[in-house]
């Protein structure tokens, strides 16, 4: 096969893909098929397109995405498990001109961090929350999360989630959307190119909402954990 030089491509072809400038060269540790990689890229693209690299402060959480600070090239603060909205609250109040956002999973946000999530949203903190919900604890090996659907088998519900034993799945966004402090809320998927585009648009609107001071912006991404599917 004849080799085509980059110059030739530039001259003759059209660019269909370029490397996202705000993604670092670090090798991502995610499992094959993990949606985190996609969502990371969307966040990085939106930050880049909005010109926010120098103005963004990201708050990482505990879970599979704990190493997000290795992948997106902005300043990061690593929060303890569940407390990212509290950390973000102070960061935003002390740096009102900055875009302050958290990146959290469902175990972090909807279990151990429920109080911080609800109260940050209720105060209407001008932060954005990127909430990746894969309905399982991925990093620790596939245990039941508050979001795990009834009947789903996990390492701590080997017979399937039973409401009598484990209660019902928690749809935390249904709670949050009733709070007066929430300025923007969207639930998206990243399973098809079209869904990925709408997810990116939601992330962009969330960032715009918090920069405009219209209250807390929440984007829930419905995700899959292929590794821990039983």
């Amino acid at each position, binding site marked *: 096969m004849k080799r085509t030089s980059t110059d030739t491509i530039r001259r003759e072809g059209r660019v269909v893909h370029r490397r996202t400038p705000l993604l670092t060269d670090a090798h991502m540790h995610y499992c094959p098929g993990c949606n985190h990689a996609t969502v990371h890229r969307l966040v990085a693209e939106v930050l880049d397109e909005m010109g926010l690299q*120098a103005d963004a402060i990201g708050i990482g959480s505990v879970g599979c995405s704990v190493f997000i600070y290795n992948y997106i090239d902005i300043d990061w603060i*690593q929060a303890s498990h569940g407390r990212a909205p509290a950390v973000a609250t102070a960061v935003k*109040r002390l740096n009102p001109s900055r875009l302050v956002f958290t990146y959290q999973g469902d175990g972090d946000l909807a279990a151990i961090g429920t109080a911080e999530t609800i109260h940050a949203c209720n105060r209407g903190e001008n932060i954005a929350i990127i909430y990746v919900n894969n309905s399982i604890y991925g990093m620790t090996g596939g245990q039941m999360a508050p979001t795990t659907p009834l009947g789903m088998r996990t390492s701590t519900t080997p017979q399937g989630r039973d409401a009598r034993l484990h209660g019902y799945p928690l749809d935390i966004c249904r709670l949050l959307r009733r709070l007066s402090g929430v300025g923007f809320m969207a639930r998206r998927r990243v399973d098809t190119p079209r869904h990925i585009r709408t997810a990116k648009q939601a992330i962009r609107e969330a960032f715009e909402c918090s920069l405009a001071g219209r209250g807390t912006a929440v984007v829930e991404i419905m995700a899959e954990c292929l590794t821990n599917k039983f």
Partner: protein
Amino acid sequence: MTEQTADLLKGNEALALAAIRYGCDGYFGYPITPQSEVLETLMAEAPWETTGMVVMQAESEPAAINMVYGGAACGRRVMTSSSGPGISLKQEGISYLAGAELPALIVNVMRGGPGLGTIQPSQADYFQAVKGGGHGDYRLIVLAPAGVQDMADFVSLAFDLAFAYRVPAMILADGAIGQMMEKVTLPPWRRRLTDAEIAERYPWAAVGKPASRSRNVLTSLELDQAVMERKSLALQERYARIEAAETRSEAYLTDDAEMLLVAFGSAARIYRKTVDLARQRGVRLGLLRPVTLWPFPTQAIARLVGQVTSVLVVELNAGQMVEDVRLAAGGRVPVEHYGRLGGVVFSPDEILEAALSQWNKTNRK
């Protein structure tokens, strides 16, 4: 908010007013007796309208300490205050502050425990403050105020030390100091640092990444053992420097002392009078007050141990600091403990009796 000369203030009020004057950027707290006046005073003063200081009532103590963590990670001078039960809830956050090498001020106005305990004064959180409290190998700089003036003065001292070494610092007070009123001269006003000054002075802070530097990441996580060991050793080396340079204690009539009292915080304040009373009875008592509980004034105590026949450690607990005094004394003289628990505060006369009885016992032998 005029320049004041001397005022009569509660310890909690003095602490709050001193924080505003110091140029503190943020306070994040949750109500608990006996320190709620800190948050109340700050809210009444409304410093966000004058200095720009942020004051927030958080939804819980874990939220409050994590707000402090966020503020500290941006290079801001931020603080929280609580009492025993709340400080226990904050231990996770304090460990993260230590692990991410973040400077911050935590104030514990101690009450009796364990559990919900009592709201009366106590010094039962010495171990928690000095020996760790949270998980992992870390230290806090711990300052023990002995009166309301110290509550005002230690805010700047604690912040300055915390930022000099990038470690969290704690003011370990108790309900007596928080609640009592004394004459106090508030510290002079200092200006808050600007965003540009913070970016320049604290190049590690997460304030938004300009093109001119690589990204700042504030984290305590490191999964590579070799790297984690290097990081941990570097932290220990910093603690050694703090021990060498920042140990503080205060001696009262120790030059000719034949017997030594060791007490910290409000106890040290009360027992100055015991020393006076004992000397009236012909016993040359001296008092050593550790001002920094960590780093502990081991050397100062070891020096005095050479000249006295016995040491009495007086604490409002079941015997905590006495362990560090015994280490310092190295078995050369008897080191006894006298304590009251549950919020009972003893009077100078009670300690005088304890001291005289120990004196008689030691000198009969």
